């Protein structure tokens, strides 16, 4: 049952990816402007421009260009960047570790802190402390990322001198960016945790356990939290796109590389192969993340298991 469901979903990824690749290709090529204008320099002639356009295959029909690209992709070759001049795969491979580091650690931070705060918020429901906790949870997500980043730099790097202002030299340079992104993600995790706990808390088997005399703490840790974690995990699995590409603002302010920055730079220069390749990769990662999340949910939720029988 689970296996069949998973296989079904896995097979669906292929046609969906192809459809997405067409959408990505169209969006990229329908953008106004083109990469050649970002390549030509003062002193070159108008004929040079035409020759360049032909060299990169931009004078052929859109359909021809698409099939050329997708054919390459299917053999694992993401092509050569036009303006950035390196194999797209190289560029992505260079930036990926930075994104994973930053995104992954921030994700961990917001998950852990978010879950804890979510539990605290649920535990303090209907008490005066609840508003305090909720306000605290909200702090990180009410200010725009660049504002928080600047504040962090001014306070911790310039005034206190605990961490470097920017860069990616060593682990100390990771702390402030991770905190900046992490703070923003706490609210979502906390809210999901709190709502999940509320839902689970209302269910019959919990009342039964109460009646049987199990202590509140035991119920919390052995039954409520494990059940509440499921929706949290599924939601988090869906956020893989954010881990990989969502740190653009923070990367900009802190002077780090990452997939988001690569994508935005390439987008600004209309470097078609890079934008197409990164978007496609992001979409694939997102679909796989969604799949994992859905499988986890299906494994636990009897209703869905029923639907797939």
């Amino acid at each position, binding site marked *: 049952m689970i296996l069949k469901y998973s296989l079904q979903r896995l097979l669906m990824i292929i046609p969906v990816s192809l459809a997405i690749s067409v959408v990505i290709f169209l969006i990229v090529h329908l953008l106004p402007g083109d990469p050649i204008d970002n390549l030509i320099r003062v002193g070159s002639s108008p004929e040079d421009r035409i020759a360049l356009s032909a060299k990169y295959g931009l004078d052929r029909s859109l359909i021809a260009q698409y099939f050329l690209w997708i054919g390459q992709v299917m053999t694992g070759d993401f092509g050569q960047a036009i303006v950035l001049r390196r194999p797209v795969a190289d560029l992505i491979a260079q930036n990926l570790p930075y994104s994973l580091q930053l995104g992954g650690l921030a994700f961990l931070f917001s998950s852990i802190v978010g879950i804890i705060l979510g539990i605290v918020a649920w535990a303090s429901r209907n008490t005066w402390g609840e508003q305090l906790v909720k306000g605290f949870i909200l702090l990180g997500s009410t200010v725009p990322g660049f504002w928080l980043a600047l504040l962090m730099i001014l306070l911790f790097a310039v005034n206190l001198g605990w961490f470097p202002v920017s860069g990616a030299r060593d682990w100390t340079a990771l702390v402030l960016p991770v905190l900046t992104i992490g703070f923003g993600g706490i609210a979502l995790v906390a809210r999901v945790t709190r709502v999940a706990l*509320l839902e689970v808390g209302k269910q019959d088997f919990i009342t039964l356990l109460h009646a049987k005399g199990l202590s509140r703490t035991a119920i919390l840790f052995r039954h409520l939290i494990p059940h509440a974690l499921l929706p949290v995990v599924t939601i988090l699995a869906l*956020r893989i796109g954010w881990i990989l590409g969502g740190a653009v603002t923070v990367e900009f302010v802190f002077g780090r590389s990452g997939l988001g920055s690569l994508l935005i730079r390439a987008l600004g220069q209309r470097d078609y192969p890079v934008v197409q390749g990164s978007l496609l990769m992001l979409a694939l990662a997102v679909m796989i993340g969604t799949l994992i999340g859905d499988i986890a949910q299906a494994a636990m939720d009897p209703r869905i298991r029923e639907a797939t029988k």
Partner: protein
Amino acid sequence: MTSAILNRLSGFAALRAFSSAIGMIAGGFLILLLLVAFFAPWITPFDVATQNLANANAAPGWPHIMGTDEFGRDVFSRVVYGARTSLSVSATAIGISVSVGMLLGAAAGYFGGMFERIVMTVVDLTWSFPDILIALIFVAIIGPGLTSTTFAIAIAYLAQFTRLTRAQIVRLKNETFVEATINLGATPAHVVLRHLLPNALAPVIVVGMLAVGDGIVLEATLGFFGLGAQPPTPSWGAMMSSGTAQLFIAPWVIIYPGVAVAITVIAVNLFGDELVRALDIRDRVRS
């Protein structure tokens, strides 16, 4: 009949959100903000676009109670008009998102099957993609400005409303009164519009409010990259962005709009939570 009663009850229940202390403060602030934005032309002492280069970067005092920016424009007036921009962009965007999302979600939930699968996959993709990337791509296509910002925010939150509505529809679809109505000869459209949607309305509205808060933050971030409201239209995000360069000479240019954003978003979120409690729909609200 049932739906009409439910609607009326929701209306009353919503007011209960103001009964708690937090509800009063947060809700009160929001109403004040709306009034300020609405009456902007009457309460602002200066024109937002008039430049006075000789008086650039003046510290807060009289008559510029929040100081002036790099062009000598009054910061207070720009913050007030910025409220208009930020709120209207956010509200419009979420409005579009809610309408389209509810329609998609209702259709997906009601018809189910392959249609539902396709809609949900596409919609999930938009949610898993970082909203800043979607916004930047949009801007690259349409160009910077409030239209792009609005559409970008709308797409970024589409998934939430679609999913919410669909969940409600799926839950209610299986309840007996729906079967009964269909047996009596009602068309799918009738069922969806008069029975299913009104139930889904309440949680969607609440989440919509919370999303307006997020929308303001996204507009500010886009403004940071210079892609939001275009000069000389004031927006909190754009003010913070151009203010960063003056951070050390004229910090008030970036502080006041930043505080405005923070307070507004906090108020929206706190009031939204009170609304959830008042409507007692915790179990139906899942961001």
